[in-house]
């Protein structure tokens, strides 16, 4: 009955989170549905002129991705906190840094990755030029991972609070802004035919920094929340 290695344990957590998500498909569907509905709001608010929509499309798509990520990140640790699993995770002899990464990876797989995969559909609805779709997907793939990492910081800090929902947006949205700037810039660059590579590289750099540092903040936040 030896303890599993850190990597095996991470995979176990990842599997656990994914099984939990798959057994409640509506949780996976909600962010996508949200994405679709907000996309439908913009033509209603801005007018249906295809040119106008196309010029706003990079920003619109990125803001919706950001919001749907924000709305789901609140729940990452919530149920584990409520039923006591989080206590057990913190007492585990396994490195918390890696365990936290497993949670984030699961969150990204069921929100960011899926959003990136369905984004071409919505991009076409908003008249985004087909040439920009590749960089839209790439920027969403990289960017939503950063968003998941940052969002989990907010989730970890507010998981012990009864009214965390609104607070988490106040804490996390300012941190999202650089990702939004470079993510939408990558798409815009592709729209006008400029290389999107530099922006994607910047997003990648942010992702590296976030992977290195965010789990530390999340681990500290979880320990504080469990103790409060």
């Amino acid at each position, binding site marked *: *009955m030896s303890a599993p290695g850190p990597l095996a344990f991470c995979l176990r957590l990842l599997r656990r989170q994914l099984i939990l998500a798959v057994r409640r498909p509506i949780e996976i569907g909600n962010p996508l549905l949200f994405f679709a509905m907000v996309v439908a709001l913009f033509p209603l608010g801005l007018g249906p002129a295809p040119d106008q929509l196309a010029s706003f499309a990079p920003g619109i798509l990125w803001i919706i991705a950001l919001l749907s990520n924000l709305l789901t990140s609140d729940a990452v640790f919530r149920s584990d906190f409520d039923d006591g*699993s989080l206590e*057990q995770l913190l007492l585990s002899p396994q490195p918390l840094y890696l365990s936290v990464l497993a949670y984030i990876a699961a969150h990204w797989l069921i929100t960011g990755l899926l959003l990136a995969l369905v984004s071409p559909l919505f991009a076409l609805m908003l008249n985004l030029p087909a040439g920009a779709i590749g960089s839209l997907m790439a920027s969403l793939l990289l960017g939503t991972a950063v968003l998941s990492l940052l969002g989990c910081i907010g989730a970890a800090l507010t998981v012990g609070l009864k009214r965390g929902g609104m607070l988490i947006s106040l804490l996390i949205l300012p941190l999202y802004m650089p990702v939004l700037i470079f993510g939408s810039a990558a798409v815009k660059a592709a729209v006008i035919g400029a290389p999107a590579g530099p922006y994607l590289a910047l997003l990648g750099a942010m992702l590296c920094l976030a992977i290195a540092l965010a789990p530390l903040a999340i681990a500290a936040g979880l320990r504080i929340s469990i103790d409060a």
Partner: protein
Amino acid sequence: MSNATPLLAVESLSLERGGRELFQGLSFEVHAGHLFQVEGVNGAGKTSLMRILAGLSRYGYSGEVLRNAPLLYLGHQSGVKGLLSPRENLALHVSGQGSYTDAQIEPALAKVGLYGYEDVPSHALSAGQHRRVNLARLYLSDSPLWLLDEPFTAIDKAGVAQLEALLVTHVEAGGAVVMTSHQALQVRYEVRFLSLLEGVLL
């Protein structure tokens, strides 16, 4: 025996909550073979003490807690996920203390009276059965030190007797138990009582 390193040593532990002193200068050692029962009325700080011992509470108290052995803590909440079956709950448990095969999980679940429930979604089980899923971890555990906060809650009489037998087996095999409970333990073993106000009672 007393010269050996204690599994858990507590030195002059004091805790204040809301201007009220819950305990002060609490010192004791838990060695292999010890079975401790923490005594105190509701609100005396038993759960606070258990959380400090486990390492979940890390500030707000003064004093030292030395943990020299892997521990297993069972708190008020069962940590059982309704969407997972009892088998999955144990196999995918977040505590990361062991990797269990079906050959290990099935007997453990059978011992806590969940034979035949292995693959039922846990949300179909009762609160007592949730507790039992959690207690099955005791049969799987190889941590020498068990910290059990009210393990008898929502467990029926037969279950309590079985659990008591398990605790005795554990301490006889060189483990140690610190537990809180409102009912007296019915065991043929020396139970040490720990009062939050007066320390270890002999």
